[in-house]
């Protein structure tokens, strides 16, 4: 079902954990709350679940207002029909898997037959057929995750909340479950809210991403939007842009000067001015070559100080002459890797250099 958050403020003591958050999640869509730890993303999710009580705002699930500070509405958690997969999974270790998954149906006082059928169906969905009788304390991390998911799915929730669902799993399992989760969400047409600090996970799971900083929404958009056009240098930094340099306008139209070095950058975008602006260049957009390239701008010489072979790519750290160190990610197809101490030329297309404010205003 559609979920709407309007002007949500949440306070812990005197400090705002969440401030003025507005968000809308279409029926069957997924929203990922993305941000560093402490940014308010989990608190926002817990407000939807009813585990935290905001001081202000309104939350609507489907047609039902579940929280409204002005009208004094606050539906308790157990009546919101919200599913939640906790970061710790919260699978009850003293119960069997059947007991865990059957719990929400027992709470609804359904008949035995229906409970058994629906538990079987939910376990089938998450690939745990035949695990009913097992004790929950004997499961692996990935299996616990699946039980927690089945336990929420079985109640046919209006909205499913997932708090860092993949963070406790090892890298390969994480990649596989990421795809499974996305497929399941689309197949069941589930409205989902995820919380994560992992940008890769966010991009893979989201219809829309809401990026949070300091309790506020800093930027909301599709994964493509956010990745291609971050609203600030700190968001770009969070999304894995490692080359971020403070710059100043230097008088020549179309170029900026590095604030701490004498290098110049030619850019396409030439509107921003001020003393808190930064140039952001993705490492994969940095081109490294052995000879001086024939580009007329953004041509810098430098020396490789670190070369780290990563299989499909090589990651370089290059000290630019009279400039900063710049990171480059080069595909292994582009020739044999350069070694430490090699002299190289570095260039970046003007369209790949984004000039962004340091923070969202």
């Amino acid at each position, binding site marked *: 079902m559609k979920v709407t958050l309007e002007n949500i403020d949440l306070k812990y003591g005197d400090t705002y954990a969440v401030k003025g958050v507005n968000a809308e999640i279409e029926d069957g869509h997924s929203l990922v709350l993305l941000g560093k730890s402490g940014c308010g993303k989990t608190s926002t999710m817990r407000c939807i679940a009813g585990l935290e009580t905001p001081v202000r705002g309104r939350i609507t699930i489907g047609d039902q207002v579940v929280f409204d500070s002005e009208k004094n509405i606050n539906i308790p958690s*157990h009546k919101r029909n919200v599913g939640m997969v906790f970061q710790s999974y919260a699978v009850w270790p003293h119960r069997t898997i059947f007991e865990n998954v059957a719990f929400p149906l027992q*709470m609804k006082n359904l008949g035995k037959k229906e409970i058994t059928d629906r538990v079987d169906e939910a376990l089938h969905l998450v690939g745990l057929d035949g695990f009913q009788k097992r004790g929950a304390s004997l499961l692996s991390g990935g299996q616990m995750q699946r039980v927690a998911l089945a336990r929420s799915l079985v109640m046919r929730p209006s909205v499913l909340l997932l708090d860092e669902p993949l963070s406790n799993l090892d890298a390969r399992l994480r990649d596989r479950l990421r795809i499974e989760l996305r497929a399941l969400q689309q197949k069941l047409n589930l409205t989902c809210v995820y919380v994560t600090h992992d940008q890769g996970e966010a991009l893979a799971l989201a219809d829309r991403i809401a990026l949070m900083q300091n309790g506020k929404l800093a930027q909301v958009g599709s994964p493509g939007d956010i990745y291609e056009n971050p609203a600030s240098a700190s968001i770009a930094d969070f999304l894995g842009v490692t080359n971020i340099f403070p710059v100043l306008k230097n008088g020549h139209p179309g170029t900026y000067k590095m604030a701490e070095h004498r290098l110049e950058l030619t850019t396409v975008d030439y509107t921003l001015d001020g003393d808190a602006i930064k140039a952001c260049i993705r490492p994969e957009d940095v081109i490294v070559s052995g000879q001086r390239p024939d580009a007329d701008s953004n041509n810098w010489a430098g020396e490789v100080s670190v070369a780290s072979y990563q299989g499909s790519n090589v990651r370089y750290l290059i000290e630019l002459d009279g400039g900063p160190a710049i990171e480059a990610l080069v595909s292994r197809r582009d020739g044999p890797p350069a070694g430490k101490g090699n002299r190289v030329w570095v260039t970046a297309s003007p369209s790949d250099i984004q000039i962004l404010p340091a923070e969202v205003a």
Partner: protein
Amino acid sequence: MPTWLMLALLAILILMPVALILISAFSSSTPRPGSIGLSGLTLENFKILSSHQSVTALTNSLVVATSASVLAMFIGGTLAFLAARTNIWGKAVIYFIGIAPMFLPSLVGALAWSLLAGPATGYLNLLTRGIGLGNLFNVYTMPGLIFVLALYYAPYAFLLIHGAMTLMNPDLEEAASVHGGSLGKILSTVTFPLVTPAILGSGVLIFALTMENFPVAQMIGTPGQIETLPTFIYRLMNSAPARGNEAAAVAVVLTVVLIAVTAIQQRVVMKRNFTTVSGKGMKPRMMDIGKLRGVGLAFALGYFALAIVLPVVALLLASLQSSPYVSNLSQLFGEDALSFWSLFQTLQSATFLDAARNSVMVAVCVAVLGAALAFYLSYIVYRTKTPGRKSLEFVAMLPLAIPAIVMGLGLLWTWLVLPLPVYGTIVVLIIAFIAIYLPQGYRGMSASILQVDKDLEDSAVLLGSTRARAVSYVTLPLMKTGVMSTVLLLLMLAMRELSAALFLFTSNTRLLAIVVFDNYDNGALRSAASTSLLYILVILALVVLAKAFGARATNGEAR
């Protein structure tokens, strides 16, 4: 139950007794039915503090508590190190030796030691006299008092230090070893510094416990004319007419000392809380102490003999000997010198049976109700965001800093003043013990509730269950061991308590501890000894029963 109701409950249980003590200390009359005793403020009562008696009592208390805690820490710490970290033989036995004296109330220990080492008639003196050495022992002295206290408080040091030593992450020591540290260096630079908080914490705890200890001071100190603050308060209350206001003034001083000490303890524990516990399964390193194993074992067995074996033998002899007066050990081996007559006599006496029934009833009620209250309190503090929950915690922990004998006095006045007909019944004893052991119950419960991830309960609520149902389906079952251990701890403490009951019992509501104490006070040593033996058996039976229900005997600490 809303929070304000809980606050009201704690106010009656804890704040009101404290307030009445304070009021009495500054007033010229004591509380009685219909009056809280506030008849004119005065500082007159505090004059007693400058008297020679109070100064001596305070000095004695400080000397006894300091020396006894140092000795207890040495005994407990050594045993803990042996049991937790060395390759000594029979570690399980060492562990048992470390905690066993906990099951012997210090009251009984004091009685046994006065039988063993009383100046003329103690069994040890009979022995040395028999082999021509004359009377060597006199427990009714300052060193005697310190020795007996240290014997029975060493288990507290043992438990705390043993816990810290077993939870230590072996990586920390292995790191020192890999980087070239010898065994001695590892011990002095890594191991002992890491358990310092536990050692200091246990030291302060034992200081507070021995400072407020009444039974040992009364049974060992008083015959030797060594008065401590608790016995001084008792004497003031028992003089005719009772000097309640002055007793209250002395109580205030004793409490202030203990609050200061407890505050230091909290500081030490808070500030130096090294995290040595890691999530992965750990096996602490066992150190090869070579030939010292024999010395260690002898030390442990020696302690066991002094704390348990000799006292129990003395109690047995005293309850079996047919003649109350024995001036020579050989008399004990004569025909008909020993018989079970007295023991059976005691076992069948109405006094014993009533007291046993009262004790068990009080202990069971205190354990169950106290644990329930402590659970509810920990739940409010750790699982809700109720405003004022920190002040609830503060009030609940308050009795820790107030000597049991002082709390007993305050509770006496509270239930005299309150218009509820519980004074003189067994109910008032239950209420009193719940109040004084709330800190222990609360600590046990909150430690256990903190081990259960809150998500486990929240998920049940999200899945459609009410909060109460979620607690009973998820949280409580997962806390089972912790809950049962807290129940057992409270059961033990309530079974052993004497000081708080001193001012609250009546002839119909005597407890086993009271009967032993009265018998001793009246010089009926044989009866005191046989009651003590049966008392220990009742305690053991309760422990076995509680353990059968899944409790662990060594979780947490006493006062």
